[in-house]
């Protein structure tokens, strides 16, 4: 019995010493807590309404203003034959250079009255350029008449246009510069909106069909983009029911993307589909959890007038450390 007791005491002391010195000190937990589990909403419109995005993109750069002149002119005579546009443009031109063109005015003046009659004259020159730009055509006309009085252009308020005019070829190039200057000065948002409206008629004859249909959809609710707070609201509603699987370490392990459709009353229609989920142990669990959260937390309170925007939602579930 004594051997047993001695061995036991020694073993316990050994164990105690190991516990005191051998065991690593309890390490404090990492304090980086998972604070929020933000859900990113990717509105479907980003994918579907590409047309709209292009429009806005085109308006911004400078080239757009050139069209604006075109569009101003077509308004009065949108449908008429091609020859007419060249005839009408002169008036805008006349604005920047009213004094110098006075001698030439006789030519433009007759055209307005006989808008459709004058074709004989312009057709000669118009045939090649009309497609490219109606504007270049106009300058050609007045200059022909104005060639006789080259000096008058010089005294013009604008110095640049005056010298180059002598040559016909030069003249054709010139016009763009004055137009640019005018556009620069007159560039303002209101005009951009005018451009947008004009776009349809401009491209009308050939490629207008598909864009127009897009336009119509957007026109139904022009200002219906979901605001950030509304997205946040939807996110918060889903987040209430969302539970992450236990044990993941890397947020990418549990980041899933779910796509689901909503009814008009905010209920989920059909079953949400998992767009993508990570190939980790937690991937499927996280995806199921996200789908469950979406189903559980419906119906969602969303602005009914923007139903087009949230009828189909793609949502990314990602815990952010």
């Amino acid at each position, binding site marked *: 019995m004594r051997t*047993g*007791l001695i*061995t*036991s*005491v020694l*073993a316990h002391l050994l164990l105690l010493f190991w516990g*005191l010195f051998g065991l690593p000190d*309890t390490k404090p937990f990492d304090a980086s807590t998972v604070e929020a589990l933000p859900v990113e909403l990717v509105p479907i419109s980003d994918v579907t309404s590409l047309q709209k995005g292009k429009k806005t993109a085109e308006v911004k750069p400078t080239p757009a203003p050139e069209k604006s002149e075109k569009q101003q002119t077509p308004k009065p005579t949108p449908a008429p034959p091609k020859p007419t546009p060249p005839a009408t443009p002169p008036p805008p031109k006349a604005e920047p250079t009213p004094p110098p063109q006075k001698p030439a005015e006789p030519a433009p003046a007759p055209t307005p009255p006989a808008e459709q009659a004058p074709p004989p004259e312009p057709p000669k020159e118009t045939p090649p350029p009309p497609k490219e730009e109606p504007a270049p055509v106009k300058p050609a006309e007045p200059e022909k008449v104005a060639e006789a009085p080259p000096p008058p252009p010089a005294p013009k308020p604008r110095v640049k246009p005056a010298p180059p005019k002598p040559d016909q070829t030069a003249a054709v190039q010139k016009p763009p510069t004055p137009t640019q200057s005018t556009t620069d000065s007159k560039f303002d948002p209101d005009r951009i909106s005018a451009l947008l409206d004009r776009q349809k008629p401009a491209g009308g004859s050939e490629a207008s069909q598909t864009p127009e249909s897009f336009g119509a959809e957007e026109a139904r609710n022009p200002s219906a983009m979901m605001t950030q707070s509304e997205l946040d609201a939807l996110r918060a509603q889903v987040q209430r029911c969302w539970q992450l699987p236990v044990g993941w370490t890397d947020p990418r392990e549990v980041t899933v993307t779910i796509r689901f459709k909503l009814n008009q009353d905010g209920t989920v229609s059909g079953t949400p589909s998992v767009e993508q989920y990570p190939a980790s142990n937690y991937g499927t669990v996280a995806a199921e959890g996200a789908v469950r959260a979406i189903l559980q937390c419906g119906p969602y309170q969303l602005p009914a007038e923007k139903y087009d925007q949230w009828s189909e939602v793609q949502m990314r579930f990602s815990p952010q450390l």
Partner: protein
Amino acid sequence: MNPADVGQAALDAPNLSLITLFLHAHIVVKCVMLGLALASIWSWAIIIDKVLLFGRVRRQIDRFEKVFWSGQSLEDLYRSLSSRPASAMAALFVAAMREWKRSFEAGARSPIGLQMRIDRVLDVTITRESERLESRLLFLATVGSAGPFIGLFGTVWGIMTSFQAIAASKNTSLAVVAPGIAEALMATALGLIAAIPAVIAYNKLSSSAGKITSRLEGFADEFSAILSRQIDERV
């Protein structure tokens, strides 16, 4: 220990080694921990002792059986063992042989009475030997069943104290609560540390003791049969 002191100490000593946990514990929890540590030491002493004893007994029995069935004369065997029976089975043999010799030397002529006496002596010897084998095993059983409860008591007491500490310091932050709970849980850990080996060892040792006892009983029956044959021959 004053509950407030517990909280203060916890704030001062964020590193919780076993010693600090023990020193900061309430006196009741300390007693429980000490008791459990002693129980663990004692039960391990018993376990070691019994394991050695059983091994020794098994080896002695094997050796005796080999000698017994080797065809050696029982008289010679008795003479060599009678002075100091080495093993449990040898003690059994010596006791039966002594009773046999005594009866014959006294000139007893009743075979039935002799047979009964020999059986009685064998039974008594078996009981004594198995008692020796199983002594202190009950302590293991007790530790195994009561250890967790004792540890749990310490835990409950410790948590009670730490809740009082919360009430006193009016601070519910985890840093105040955690040390008290940790030291309280240590009591349960000690209880389990003491109980688990005790339970396992109790089951194992009691079954080995049972096996040895049944071997002794088997030998006793066989030996009693041999002696009764001898009695019939002699009478």
